[in-house]
């Protein structure tokens, strides 16, 4: 007699009534390998109402960046990649990247979803929806997610790692007039706060330094720090070195008291070879470094920031480059000791 399939919907999932095991997914099912953690899925097979996800996790929520980022093309005019690459980190987190051939800064924007709403961190470098359809993409991601979760309404909050950053605030105009949308006001200095997406709390950490109004977001579900221009694998232009050091100290303290899986910044400019960066305005970056930075790099960043503080100089590190008080085009022959100096090919 064939074994009947386990009834996942009734035993393992939370539904709108709040009943369930408290875990998402079905880790105890025999088809899972031993030691499997929750599968991050809270989709019942036959949901009857709004699906409520449990965002309380002991460890960072599972998630991965499973795709290579689109990286432009040798001839930018002939690029036919999507204008926005949407990568689902997990069911409740989406990473969007702007095409390098639309804007060379190719910023990353993050869409986080919770039981009571969605948060869009940053809005990209291009205002024209024809070139960079951010609102349309966000709407479609939210609509797809809402359909899976049986939700009628998903209020959207838009917040930026820096309101003055033209590489991240241009897409904001596309959301003008969007119903059920709130644009987070600019926090005052020293202000900390939280954004509650419905059982999913995003902490707001003021981190000026790269920008005067810089903010870092900490996602308690994924345990990810969204640092924007403060810390990312690229040429970091320091706006004020005192603030920059203080902000990194704050981040280090945060890391020491919270679980941090990754630091995700707003751009990638470094190459895969350590210490090498693509030049400004490059529209073809075939050998990019990964987006994600491990939290131990905060120590490196802090030590490097203290080193450049008070000096007009640039400092090359394997995973980022600090530019303090110099032109964005500054170059240096000083290369970190012990790091292989590999020049990657530059096709033309």
């Amino acid at each position, binding site marked *: 007699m064939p074994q009947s399939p386990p009834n996942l919907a009734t035993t393992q999932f939370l539904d709108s009534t709040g009943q369930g095991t408290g875990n998402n997914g079905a880790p105890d099912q025999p088809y899972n390998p031993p030691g499997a953690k929750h599968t991050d899925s809270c989709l019942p097979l036959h949901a009857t109402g709004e699906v409520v996800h449990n965002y309380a996790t002991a460890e960072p929520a599972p998630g991965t960046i499973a795709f290579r980022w689109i990286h432009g093309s040798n001839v930018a005019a002939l690029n036919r990649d999507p204008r926005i690459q949407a990568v689902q980190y997990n069911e409740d987190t989406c990473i969007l990247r702007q095409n390098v*051939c*639309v804007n060379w800064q190719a910023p990353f924007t993050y869409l986080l979803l919770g039981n009571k709403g969605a948060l869009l961190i940053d809005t990209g470098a291009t205002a024209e929806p024809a070139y960079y359809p951010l609102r349309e993409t966000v709407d479609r991601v939210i609509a797809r997610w809402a359909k899976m979760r049986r939700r009628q309404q998903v209020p959207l909050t838009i917040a930026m790692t820096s309101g003055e950053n033209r590489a991240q605030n241009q897409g904001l105009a596309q959301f003008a007039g969007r119903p059920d949308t709130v644009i987070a006001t600019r926090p005052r200095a020293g202000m900390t706060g939280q954004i509650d997406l419905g059982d999913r709390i995003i902490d707001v950490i003021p981190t000026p330094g790269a920008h005067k109004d810089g903010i870092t977001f900490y996602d308690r579900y994924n345990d990810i720090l969204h640092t924007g221009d403060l810390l990312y694998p690229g040429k970091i232009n*320091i706006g004020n070195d005192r603030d920059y050091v203080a902000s990194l100290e704050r981040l280090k303290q945060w890391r020491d008291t919270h679980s941090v899986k990754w630091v995700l910044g707003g751009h990638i400019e470094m190459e895969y070879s350590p210490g090498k960066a693509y030049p400004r305005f490059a529209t073809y970056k075939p050998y990019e470094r990964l987006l994600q930075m491990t939290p131990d790099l905060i120590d490196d960043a802090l030590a490097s920031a203290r080193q450049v503080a008070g000096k007009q100089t640039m400092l090359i590190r394997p995973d980022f480059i600090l530019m303090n008080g110099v032109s964005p085009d500054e170059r240096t022959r000083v290369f970190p000791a012990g790091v292989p100096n590999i020049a990657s090919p530059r096709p033309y």
Partner: protein
Amino acid sequence: MNRRTFIKVPLALPFAAAAADADAADDGPPPVAVQIDFTSHLPAPGTFPARWICGSPSCMDNQDPPVQVHWYNEHTVFMRQNKAYSYEAPFMHLYFGNERILMLDQGFTTLRTDWPLRDVVDDCIAKWCARHGRRPEDMELLMAFSHLHSDHYAALAQFTDRPNTRYMGLTHEEMVGFWGMTGYPEERVTLDLGGRNILIWGSPGHVISEFAYYDTYTQILFTGDMFYQGRCYITYWDKWFDSMKRLMDFVDTHPVTHVVGCHVEISRTGEDYPYGVTYQPDEAPMQLTVADLRHAFEVAKTITKPGIYFTGAVFLCNQTRGTTTIDKNPYAYV
């Protein structure tokens, strides 16, 4: 047809076959080449476009042609690479003579599938030949460039299988030998395109191997990357200053209508477009005047230290690193 039979086919065959077809279709005599007079009524008048293509806010949405072709006059073509195909957006020149054609500079994209410079040039030559009773395969094409930087010769590879085409080598010795110079950089040689003379001499400073070209027909002086509407990256100041002196001597003794370079990196208001930018909406014209050149020389006389000096028309970047601009971090605060 296997590879061996393919190799046996003479290189000029496709052209010859095409020409034979054309003759058969016309069923008339071969075209009669009328000798063009390049020595009277100088300088030959010509026009520059009111506006060159200059990129777009979003590169992948650029709708401009890959190469902008502008006929300065009946026998002279200026071309520009689209900024969305290469941020360097270099200019290229075609000078037609009675017997041969000189092409100066070849742009910054290697592959013909990426950027069809070869097709554009072949089309220009075909049109000119059709208008002046010549067959393209009879005209020798000389491919030269101002200096040994890849934004000036990258597309040379597209022409290597072109019949009746000669091109400069990629070493200083080959370049000097191509023009038969023995006294670089002082020696001035004359290239005869068939009634149309091009004067060529050395113009180092940006790099060691650079040439200045002067067309006696349009009286346009081409100074390459050594002097152009933008940031003149001067690597060797003494050599550059000597080259400027040579240019001064030249403009004192020869009529010059325009001084043209390879790039435009400056706006009409004197704003510096940073190195690598792909959109220059308010670009200055490509051509400079002799007065600009003379004024730059006067400014250069006062320069004693490395640094960036603005002459009003060009930035003289004296021994600053290449790609340096005057850009600052716009988000710096106290």
